[in-house]
């Protein structure tokens, strides 16, 4: 197996495969930077090109492209507060706050380094998981998926503000997020919920316009109101800042690795979706705060808030490949399209990929690693220039940012309604920032609400109430209690009993 592993590296580095990968990386680089147009869509558009390629080349091209999208998406999130990808929203909270403090270089350095570490951990997990992947994936059924989404929702506790008032606000916005997740036809009997007689809402709220509006528009308004550059009066970024960011990543190396593992694991579970990993990782980073003062620093530019999501978002791809390869069941929407690529190049995902076609599987591991190394090194070359964008006068940037924001929202359905959704959530986001309501719980509720509902329904329909007694479900229930407990303990000032009432 080790031999195949090394041979696969040589295979990926052969000129024809590596040149396809370079093309992929260049495409992915831009797709990541531009808001709205996402990795999955681009994969779909590129799929027709692989009909005549050999498997290793095809995956070098497709995966090379896809695995760098999140890495560069974070650059946009940090610099402008506009999510470059739907998967890089959590980075905005602290990354953009750092940019406003004149630390864009440091945030970028930290984000790129953690992205690289995350990608390597994810790829390593893919390689190591190969012998045990089948039992690993089959262990989790619908009841376990439901409980995992509840674990995710429980993290709302640590994404809320401090004190009873902060907690209540966090839970209220979380509930709003869950309600918003209910918009559209319900997945079981097809009843239309909150669709306001609009065909556009049949399939639910599209995440991209919601997130782009919710995060980018408040930043643009803020920039206009302040009338300064993004980094206000902070001194011009220096080269040493980027180095500081890299050092930060290694200073918090265990946090980065833990978040990478979280990302990998969420990636493995089909149907939970890529948008979730970043928020769980962010919440986990918040939990690492040791004092209430440290806790308050999150959202105002703590580098750990950049490191956590950065690592998780990139490690998740390696994880998502695991069920795709071993079962032909995609771990994310991008993987669903990659699955099409398998058939096009004449491969059938399934047990064969772990034996007969092990070389192709291994080449995927290497593609993820090599593509990320290339991207991160290339980004470092431009980093200081990019960081200087935060010193440009706001009035010059605003038209450009507004254009990017609305184009980004519009690309999701090519519908004017996308713009309306972005504007509505932009207004809501602005009010929430202005009156200090936390935005993260709403997003967590929105991305997890559908998963939770779907799998609760299936669990009850299939097992009645017996699902509650499944061993992993019991473990996860304990984990939920642990997550809420530790958030409450961290709140410090909050009396425990009152918090527990809020949590139910």
């Amino acid at each position, binding site marked *: 197996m080790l031999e195949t592993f090394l041979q696969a590296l040589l295979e990926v580095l052969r000129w024809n495969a590596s040149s396809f990968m370079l093309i992929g990386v260049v495409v992915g680089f831009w797709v990541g930077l531009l808001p709205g147009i996402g990795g999955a869509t681009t994969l*779909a558009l590129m799929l027709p090109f692989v*009909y005549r390629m050999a498997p290793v080349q095809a995956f070098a091209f497709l995966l090379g492209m896809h695995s760098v999208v999140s890495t560069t998406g974070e650059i946009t999130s940090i610099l402008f507060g506009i999510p470059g990808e739907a998967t890089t929203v959590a980075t905005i909270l602290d990354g953009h706050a750092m940019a406003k403090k004149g630390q864009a270089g440091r945030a970028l350095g930290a984000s790129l380094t953690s992205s690289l570490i995350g990608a390597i951990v994810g790829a390593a997990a893919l390689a190591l998981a190969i012998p045990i992947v089948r039992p690993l994936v089959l262990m989790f059924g619908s009841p376990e998926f439901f409980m995992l989404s509840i674990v995710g929702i429980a993290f709302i506790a640590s994404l809320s503000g401090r004190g009873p008032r902060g907690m209540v606000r966090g839970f209220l916005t979380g509930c709003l997020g869950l309600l918003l997740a209910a918009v559209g036809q319900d997945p079981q009997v097809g009843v239309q919920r909150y669709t306001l007689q609009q065909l556009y809402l*049949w399939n639910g709220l599209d995440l991209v316009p919601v997130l782009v509006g919710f995060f980018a528009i408040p930043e643009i308004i803020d920039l206009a109101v302040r009338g300064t550059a993004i980094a206000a009066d902070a001194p011009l970024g220096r080269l040493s800042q980027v180095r500081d960011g890299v050092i930060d990543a290694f200073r918090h190396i265990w946090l980065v690795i833990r978040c990478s593992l979280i990302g990998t694991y969420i990636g493995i579970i*089909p149907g939970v979706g890529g948008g979730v990993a970043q928020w769980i990782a962010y919440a986990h980073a918040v939990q690492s705060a040791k004092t209430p003062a440290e806790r308050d620093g999150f959202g105002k530019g703590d580098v750990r808030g950049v490191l956590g999501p950065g690592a998780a978002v990139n490690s998740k791809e390696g994880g998502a490949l695991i069920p795709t390869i071993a079962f032909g*069941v995609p771990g994310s929407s991008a993987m*669903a399209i990659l699955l099409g690529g398998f058939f096009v190049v004449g491969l059938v995902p399934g047990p064969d990929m772990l034996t007969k076609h092990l070389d192709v599987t291994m080449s995927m591991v290497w593609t993820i690693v090599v593509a990320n190394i290339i991207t991160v090194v290339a980004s470092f070359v431009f980093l200081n220039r990019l960081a200087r964008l935060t010193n440009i006068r706001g009035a010059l940037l605003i038209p450009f940012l507004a254009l990017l924001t609305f184009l980004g929202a519009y690309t999701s*359905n090519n519908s004017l309604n996308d713009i309306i959704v972005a504007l509505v959530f932009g207004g809501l986001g602005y009010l929430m920032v202005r009156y200090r309501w936390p935005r993260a719980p709403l997003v967590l509720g929105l991305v997890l609400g559908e998963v939770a509902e779907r799998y609760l*329904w299936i669990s009850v329909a299939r097992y009645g109430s017996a699902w509650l007694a499944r061993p992993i479900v019991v473990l996860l229930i304990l984990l939920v209690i642990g997550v809420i407990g530790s958030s409450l303990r961290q709140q410090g000032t909050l009396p425990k009993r009152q918090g527990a009432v809020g949590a139910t």
Partner: protein
Amino acid sequence: MRAFVVAVALCLVASPFFTGPVAGQQPLFAGKTVTIIVGYNPGGGYDLVARLIARYLPKYLPGNPAVVVQNMPGANSIIAANHVYTVAKPDGLTIGAFNRNLILGQLVKAPGIRFDMTKFAWVGSPASETTVLTIRNDLPYRAATDLLKADPAVIVGATGPGASTYDFPLLLKALAKFNLRIISGYPSSADIMLAVERKEVDGRAGSYSSTKPFIDRGLVRSIVRGRASVPDIAQLPMDEDLVPDARSKAVMRLRSSPEIIGRPFVAPPGTPEEYIRAYWDAFTKVAQDKEFLVDADKAGFEINYVRGDQALQISRDVLGAAPDIVKVFTQFFSFN
């Protein structure tokens, strides 16, 4: 130098006037762009078929136009169909690729539909879609009739109403009295297969092409198929053969009619006949192109071109079903 620039500019400005009179003798599509509007996001089956067709169509349309694919997702392609019906110009340069079940949606009067499927100018359907019910290989049931007395009930995973994963087993359960338990709500067919693998459910109905890899590796075996078929599974019993009465047969046939025109392509009502005939001709040739067939096979499509006039006839037959049949059908089917 300056004179040269002016001369070039003049030529550019004047060029439309020079090409004007010649256009009459030019092939129908020369210098034009055909847009295929797909009712789904990039990446799904409808999108893949459209993109594959878009690659081969220019070769066979007179004048070799550029063909581009535009995605207009939402409401299971009702939005795109409304657009092509009411907004798009009938100039022969726009065609739509929609959900095959729109015709059933129109039959049961789903909300939001502003088109009449029989008034579109039909290009036809390049591929059909075979539905097959498969169950896990380790179950003792081999023939379709074994499922009548299955004990306990065979659990079938489904995505939701309006999809073949749900409607096909539902009719088998209700009309053919199969002992099935349908658990719906899975996000996609692939997720159901994973549930089959971990024994959360026992089987799945769905398109044969997407199930084939799992049949080949011995996870599931096929039991019953719908009316549309491919040679591989032609020997399987058809759902209509398993019900005794004519009404049940008609209801099942109604469900499977759209699968024969599995990937419908239509143009706006009023599109000139000459364009439609050019499309019929081009689609016929694409469906015989050797390279196209290789690519389509890789992507798992059952290429079987049903020409526009025949597709329209099938649609008319569906909408002309007897009221009592439609009444029964409406009890089981909801367009989603």
